Structures are given as C-alpha cells and as structure tokens.
C-alpha cells in the first residue's frame, strides 16, 4: 500500500511527519504508539475497522493520557498565528 497513494507521494511525506510527532512524544515522555499511521484505501472498510480496533486496544492498554484534566496543563498559546 505504501507509495500507492491518490496523492502520489503524499503518504510517504505523511509517514515522515508522523515519525516526527512520534519522536516528539518520546522526547516529552509519552508513548510513541499513541500515534500510529496505517495505509489503506477508501474501499477497505473492514480493514479500517480492524486497525481502529487494534489502535484503540493498544491505547487502552497504555491507559488514559496522563496530561488530561490538569490545571497546569492548557493547550492555549499566545502565538499570533
């Protein structure tokens, strides 16, 4: 599937960016497996469900995001963007 993309090389670029995020999570101290990328086509509904179930189960094993619902943690930033 990889490389076989409607947007040509888009999925390869996406994988590199997902890798960046996974490394960033590791640096921060979170599990990289909270973000995963799967390749599949829009016609593969069954496969999609399977991947979603697999990822959900893996994340359930990891437990809830330790950063949630904490007064010190907010996602707001003051960037002018």
């Amino acid at each position, binding site marked *: 599937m990889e490389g076989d993309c409607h947007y040509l090389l888009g999925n390869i670029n996406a994988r590199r960016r997902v890798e960046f995020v996974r490394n960033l999570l590791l640096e921060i*101290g979170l599990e990289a497996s909270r973000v995963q990328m799967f390749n599949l086509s829009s016609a593969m509904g069954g496969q999609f469900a399977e991947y979603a179930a697999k990822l959900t189960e893996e994340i359930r094993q990891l437990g809830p995001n330790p*950063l949630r619902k904490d007064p*010190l943690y907010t996602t707001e*930033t*003051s960037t*002018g963007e």
Partner: protein
Amino acid sequence: MIIAEQKPLDEIMGLLGSDERVLVVGCGTCVTVCFAGGAREAAIVAASVRMTSKLNSVPREVTDVTVQRQCEWEYLDEIKEQISDADIILSLGCGIGVQAIAERFPDKWVVPGLNTTFLGMPTEQGVWIERCAACGDCVLGITGGICPIARCSKSLLNGPCGGSEDGHCEINPDIDCAWQLIYDRLSRLGRLDALLELQPPKNWSTSRDGGPRKITRDDLRLAAEEE
C-alpha cells in the same frame, strides 16, 4: 541566511531548571525560514515543555510569543511586558537573538533553545548547506563563486588536496568537495588559469581571528544616537 536547529528537549529542560514562568520567544526571520524557531516551532516547544513538565510534576506556566526579528531592539521592546512577567526566557532565535534579549533586558535570565549552526541555504526542502564563513575578506571572485573557506574541510586556498573522490570530500561522503566544484566551474567557464596562481596566506584578521568585529558607517549613523 542563518541556519539553526533545535536543541534536544532534555537539554532545554535542563536549561530551564526550576523556573516556573517560561516565555518562549520565537523569531520571524532566518530561523522561521529554516523551521527551527518561528511561531510554529515556538508553539510546539512551548507545548512540549508544558507536557514534559507536567509528566515530571514540575510546576510550570509556559507562554510563547514570536517577534519579527529578535536581533533588533524595536521588535524586542514590543514584548517587554511579557518578558517582565516571566522568570526565564527561552529564546528560539539564533545566538544573536539570545544575546539581544540578554542585552536589552539586563535583569532577565535567557537561555537558548537552538544551536546556531551556520550561514547557508536550503538546497531542497528539508536540506540546508553551509555556504559562507563570514571571513570578512571575500575570495569568491577568484574561486568562481564557490567558497573554499566555508566549503572545503581544510579551508584550502590552493586546492584541491588529494582527498577528494568522485566529487566528495574524504571526511564526509555526503559533502561535495568544494575544490572539485571550483575546478569544474572554472573548467566550464574556460578560466582554469586562475588555479595556477599561488594564493598567498589569507589575512585572517578580518575573520573572527582578529577578535569580535564591528562595522561603523558614519553615512548611516544618526547624530542623536552617537555617544
């Protein structure tokens, strides 16, 4: 432009120590273009610091702001309230930006979030290469527009040495041999004669070797600012 890259988060956390209120300051010029310290990166670093502090139960309040240029007083003055509210400044500017903040805000502790690496350019998206060593006495006029000071591993003025193979430098096959490039270019332009001339020892006093450098232009100075 100035090329920089982010320090590892671990190192940044070490530099921040136990200071609670952190202001991450991005810069909208060179380091934005090389994706190291612009608004986007400042937001990512701020979020990363916030998250990792929380995971380690370090009390922390992190905000971020990006100025157009950290190396000019007028842009720094725009954020002086935010700076005064912070315990520590994490600059995502180049080394010049960090120092500009230190100089403009003498009572504020500032630490670098980037390693300033070189003067260069992107040769493709995501790839940057050094091009200039700021030696203060440009030799590009005799080397066909390719700098041996910045781009030859030994800064040879009378290259090539014997260590180039298939156009690559022996110390790193990912790096082009500057003298092979010079040779090829002079050859293409029919100017190989230039290579036969012995280049004398370089005057390094215009480079960093002469001490910190300064340029003063009276035609541009304002009488009111002179001391």
